[in-house]
């Protein structure tokens, strides 16, 4: 028992509540939220270190013993995700300080921001399937509020679709939980895992597994449930879009990884190597084709989220320690680089006033630092060595060939090529070519805007150069989650 595990959930919760009260003082809000974000960063680093050293930390909330009460479990995967969440949220928050207008700030921007973090952190930590639903809803409700925040015509129109698809998916989530409860009679994920192992995973349990997959796939934007993503991520300001692009779909992916390594891991030929790999292939191809066909900075990035979510799920689908380690590494790389790229989109929008690539050009002459930083992140995303993208895709594709999954591995390579093509399209349209922004726009100072982005770009370089230790860490994470007995023992203490 340790109350440390609850802190990543209640600190943002308290701060969010305090910020509601001080909603009208936007200076105070910035100070409080800035310090909180940095504090969360330190806390999650400490927590990750502690779990790395001493093993899983479990908290039985309200002092109810494990299968009856709600447990919070900090294992290596969860703490890694927590750490990434705080890195990304800190970057987005500091970017928001400079870009979000004070009208929006007064309208409870920061409280919603922190409640979103509450939901995300809770979803990572919880060891109870219904509690996972509750934290998903906390996250989604805040995300609904943030995605319409400001209430422009475009936002209202597109967010409605986002909200409705998520409401529907949440309904299915409850259905899946109800079925699982009726079959296993418990909600504790470790306990469910035990019971499913006793029951043998056939018939009904496979159906439940697929229903969970559908639920999380619609939140994680997998084929064919990704259509809401590109349009709805286009509307909100860059700081929010970056947070969503970096974070939200990955919560769905985390849930898929958790559920399919802890509970439904008995029939990998049907669920993992059959359905998940197929879906991953379609997601990658269709996502990247969408990106290739677009001429808008943010839309290209949004479609890339879809194709890259495919890589993560593919890593899970191949289901060897190497592949899952690759998927974990890829999540780390993707969350950091994707957030950075969305923030770049915000910075260029600040300069040129548009995200349409055909109306941009020649930024490299007026803003060389921005251009080269973008270049690094772009080729990192496409998977060019020595950056993190290469080292994270490599194990996934290698494992694919090792396991005889030649089709999906070939698709992954092709998709990497198309990713490179569309990133270079952004680079050549927006940064090369004739200068299309006015000389007044060229003087726009962006030094401050770059401040939150630089650490993210530095991280992708570090993740590439220090690939060996980080890959070892991902391998540890993957070995831990591939062996559910570690998780079960730490929760049920048998």
């Amino acid at each position: 028992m340790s109350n440390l595990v609850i802190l990543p959930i209640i600190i943002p919760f308290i701060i969010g509540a305090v910020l509601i009260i001080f909603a009208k003082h936007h200076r105070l809000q910035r100070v409080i939220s800035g310090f909180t974000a940095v504090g969360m960063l330190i806390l999650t680093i400490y927590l990750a270190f502690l779990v790395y050293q001493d093993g899983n930390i479990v908290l039985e909330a309200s002092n109810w013993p494990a299968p009856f009460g709600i447990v919070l479990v900090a294992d290596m995967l969860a703490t890694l995700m927590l750490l990434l969440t705080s890195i990304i949220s800190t970057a987005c928050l500091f970017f928001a300080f400079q870009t979000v207008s004070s009208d929006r700030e007064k309208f409870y921007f920061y409280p919603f921001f922190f409640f979103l973090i509450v939901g995300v952190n809770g979803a990572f930590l919880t060891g109870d399937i219904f509690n996972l639903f509750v934290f998903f809803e906390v996250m989604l409700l805040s995300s609904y509020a943030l995605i319409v925040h400001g209430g422009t015509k475009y936002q209202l129109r597109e967010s409605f679709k986002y909200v409705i698809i998520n409401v529907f998916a949440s309904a299915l989530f409850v259905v899946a939980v109800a079925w699982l409860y009726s079959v296993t009679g418990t909600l504790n994920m470790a306990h469910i895992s035990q019971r499913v192992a006793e029951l043998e995973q056939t018939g009904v349990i496979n159906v439940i597994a697929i229903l969970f997959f559908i639920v999380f796939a619609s939140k994680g934007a997998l084929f064919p449930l990704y259509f809401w993503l590109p349009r709805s991520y286009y509307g909100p300001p860059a700081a929010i879009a970056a947070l969503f692009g970096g974070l939200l779909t990955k919560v769905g992916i985390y849930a898929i990884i958790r559920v399919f390594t802890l509970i439904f891991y008995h029939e990998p030929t049907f669920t993992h190597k059959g359905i998940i790999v197929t879906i991953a292939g379609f997601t990658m191809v269709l996502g990247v084709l969408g990106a290739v066909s677009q001429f808008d900075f943010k839309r290209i990035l949004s479609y890339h989220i879809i194709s890259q979510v495919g890589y993560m799920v593919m890593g899970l689908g191949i289901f060897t320690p190497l592949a899952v380690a690759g998927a974990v590494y890829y999540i780390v790389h993707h969350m950091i680089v994707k957030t950075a790229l969305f923030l770049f989109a915000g910075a260029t929008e600040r300069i040129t006033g548009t995200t349409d690539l055909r109306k941009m050009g020649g930024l490299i002459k007026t803003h060389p630092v921005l251009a080269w930083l973008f270049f690094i992140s772009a080729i990192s995303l496409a998977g060019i060595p020595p950056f993190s993208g290469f080292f994270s895709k490599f194990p996934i594709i290698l494992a694919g060939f090792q396991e005889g999954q030649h089709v999906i591995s070939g698709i992954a390579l092709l998709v990497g090529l198309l990713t490179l093509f569309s990133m270079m399209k952004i680079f050549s349209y927006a940064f090369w070519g004739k200068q299309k922004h006015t000389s007044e726009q060229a003087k726009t100072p962006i030094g401050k805007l770059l401040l939150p982005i630089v650490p993210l770009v530095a991280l992708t370089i570090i993740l590439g150069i220090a690939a060996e230790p980080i890959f070892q860490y991902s391998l540890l994470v993957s070995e831990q989650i591939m062996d559910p007995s570690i998780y079960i023992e730490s929760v049920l203490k048998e």
Partner: protein
Amino acid sequence: MEVLMSVVIGIIFSVSIYLFLSKSIIRVILGSLLISHGVHLLLITMSGLQRGGPPLLGLEAEAYTDPLPQALVLTAIVISFGVTAFLLVMAYRTFKEHKTDNLEELRGSADE
């Protein structure tokens, strides 16, 4: 009893899907409201409709029904209350901005 409930849930689901597919925003919201009811009933039904006493400490009974599904449903109701309230406010704002509640007209064009 479970069979009857299942049929009722099936009807609720089909009606709510029909409403989801309609063109008016307010009908879609009603659909989401209805599907949440269906889901809550399902949650109660799936965990078995035992006929014991209600799980209250104030009541004396020989057997109590499983209180957990009811707690879950209560939580789910609160959440769907929040979501529906948000959706209604949002639909209202959308109507004010766009002057229509027809989703066909809210499609938007590709290049804007």
